[in-house]
């Protein structure tokens, strides 16, 4: 029996058994084992495999040789893929050529059973599925995105990459059930249903020009004007040869099979016209030309902007099903924080995070409750109880400050006390590394690093992703652009989301000194994704960026 074994990290693309056994080979049995979209009950987008390749090949060969004694076949080819394998792609291919189907089937089935017992190949991780995959998940081969399924692993991953953080957040944020609202209150909300046209639009043929409607194939030279139709008129009549009707732009045409001759192309004498120039165009908007009854005009997930609302108005869909307003609880911490209308004593600073977060949240149509907590953990807990800030009544919880590991940084225990499971507590990024993410059923929580620039950065890649997905929309996407000027970095070992100003299509990096830099923040409308260990980027260099202009 001829045995071919291959362990590869390349995709397995429809291998064909092309051996010259056409005379004796009565059976060709092929099996592809593909990556399914569910692993341990969780939606995934990929699996990662590892192998002890020399031994795995050796084991497969021994298994096949021993099985060949019981089920002799002519050829066996096995290809096992390792590395990251996206859902739907093939992890293992087994092709067998035999004399009869009996041996081929038996060999195939027994080989697969033995493989799963003895061949040193492992699924070492699953990539959790984001319902709306961020666009930059293109670097699927990067194992940094893989959530390791380590034995006895703690649920708290110590350090996430930016991609991994976004993927993890996305996996935990499911759209909430929709509510019906009047379309006049629906601006900025996300549609939770598919909307179809209930009638043809336009409902009848309309003129696109000021001119004269005549029969489409009428070659008369002069025409009698029978009537005049304005945009609002509805006066059906069957035109005859030599008859014309004066029509305004937008007027409903009186019958079918017409053309409209532009008024510039006729000469009028009293109640008759003569066509002086003919052209091919009909100058008619056909019935249902824009939408036919039943065609989908807006899909689930569409953001109801001005144009979408105009469309809903056009078709009379005045009670759309949209995402509910998200309820957000924002807790601030730190005894050094005072109200912005007060004068700080030494050691005190004005609270800029509250207005920053409130303003950013309002772009997402959230209902926001904000509360300042005392720095003592027990007092903070009492405050939450006193004000009855039940986290179960909020969709999203944000805690500002206290995300580091100092004595008074109680965000982590606070979130756990409130019933959240901490999914990660650090992201390998600057600014904003000490970001905490927790979940409690459908609710999610973020512990935001203390200063305003970190808040801004973390909001745009993490909180905005959660808000968009909880609303049923799509997560913010990184786009590709060009630097307007040279970017000098101190070669940071972490990825950086660098404040910048997008103007006229070019990205101008802004100088910033520390993660507390608010003067820079005031000009920022874009975040540049600067790779780790990148000393500088030349003007004109291409770079990923995240719009941050709301």
């Amino acid at each position: 029996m001829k045995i071919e074994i291959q362990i590869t990290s390349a995709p397995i693309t429809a291998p064909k058994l092309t051996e010259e056994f056409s005379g004796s080979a009565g059976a060709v049995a092929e099996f592809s084992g593909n990556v399914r979209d569910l692993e341990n009950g969780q939606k995934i987008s990929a699996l990662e495999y590892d192998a002890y390749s020399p031994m795995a090949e050796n084991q497969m060969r021994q298994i096949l040789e021993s099985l060949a004694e019981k089920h002799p076949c002519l050829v066996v080819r096995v290809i096992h893929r390792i590395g990251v394998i996206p859902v739907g792609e093939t992890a293992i291919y087994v092709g067998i050529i035999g004399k009869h189907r009996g041996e081929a089937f038996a060999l195939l089935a027994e080989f697969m059973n033995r493989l799963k017992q003895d061949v040193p190949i492992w699924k070492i991780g699953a990539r959790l599925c984001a319902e709306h995959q961020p666009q930059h998940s293109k670097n699927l081969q990067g194992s940094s995105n893989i959530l390791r399924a380590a034995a006895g692993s703690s649920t708290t991953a110590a350090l996430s990459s930016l991609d991994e953080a976004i993927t993890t957040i996305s996996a935990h944020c499911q759209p909430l059930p929709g509510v019906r609202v009047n379309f006049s209150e629906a601006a900025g909300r996300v549609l939770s249903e598919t909307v179809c046209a209930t009638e043809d639009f336009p409902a009848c043929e309309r003129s696109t020009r000021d001119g004269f409607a005549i029969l489409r194939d009428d070659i008369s030279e002069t025409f009698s004007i029978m009537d005049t139709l304005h945009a609002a008129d509805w006066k059906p009549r069957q035109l005859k040869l030599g008859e014309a009707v004066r029509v305004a732009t937008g007027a409903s045409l009186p019958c079918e099979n017409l053309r409209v001759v532009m008024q510039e192309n006729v000469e009028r004498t009293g109640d008759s016209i003569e066509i002086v120039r003919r052209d091919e165009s009909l100058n008619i908007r056909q019935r249902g030309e824009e939408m036919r009854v039943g065609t989908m005009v807006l899909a689930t997930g569409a953001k109801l902007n001005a144009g979408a609302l105009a469309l809903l108005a056009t078709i009379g869909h005045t009670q759309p099903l949209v995402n509910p307003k998200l309820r957000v609880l924002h807790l601030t911490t730190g005894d050094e924080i005072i109200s912005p209308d007060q004068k700080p004593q030494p050691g005190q600073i004005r609270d800029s995070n509250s207005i920053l977060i409130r303003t950013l949240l309002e772009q997402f149509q959230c209902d926001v409750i904000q509360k300042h907590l005392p720095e003592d953990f027990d007092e903070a807990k009492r405050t939450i109880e006193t004000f009855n800030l039940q986290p179960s009544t909020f969709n999203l919880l944000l805690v500002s400050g206290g995300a580091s590991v100092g004595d008074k940084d109680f965000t982590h225990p606070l979130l756990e006390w409130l019933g959240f499971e901490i999914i990660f507590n650090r992201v390998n990024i600057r600014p904003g590394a000490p970001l905490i993410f927790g979940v409690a059923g459908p609710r999610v929580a973020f512990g935001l690093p203390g200063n305003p620039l970190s808040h801004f950065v973390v909001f745009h890649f993490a909180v905005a992703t959660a808000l968009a997905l909880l609303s049923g929309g799509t997560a913010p996407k990184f786009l590709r652009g060009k630097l307007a000027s040279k970017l000098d970095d101190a070669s940071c070992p972490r990825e950086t989301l660098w404040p910048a100003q997008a103007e006229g299509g070019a990205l101008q990096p802004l100088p910033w000194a520390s993660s507390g830099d608010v003067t820079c923040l005031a000009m920022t409308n874009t975040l540049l994704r600067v790779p780790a260990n990148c000393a500088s980027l030349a003007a004109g260099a291409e770079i990923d960026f995240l719009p941050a202009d709301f």
Partner: protein
Amino acid sequence: MAMRFLLFAQVKDAVGAAGLDLQISGSPDAAELWRTLIAAEPKLAAFQSSTRLARNGEYADAKTIFSDNDEVALIPPVSGG
């Protein structure tokens, strides 16, 4: 003499390395290798009951004797296919 152990999957994640170099004396069997492994890396105790040892690409059994030129691998339960 130093012996190189290859680690995979859960074991690799638990130890945080793909290999371990440990001092071995004499001609140990599997039980003695496990004692050495666990002494050096106590986390491995949790994997002993489910993990097989392989010597030069072949599963070892209780009678297998190892020597310093062998490639030894710890094979936790496999999950290929």
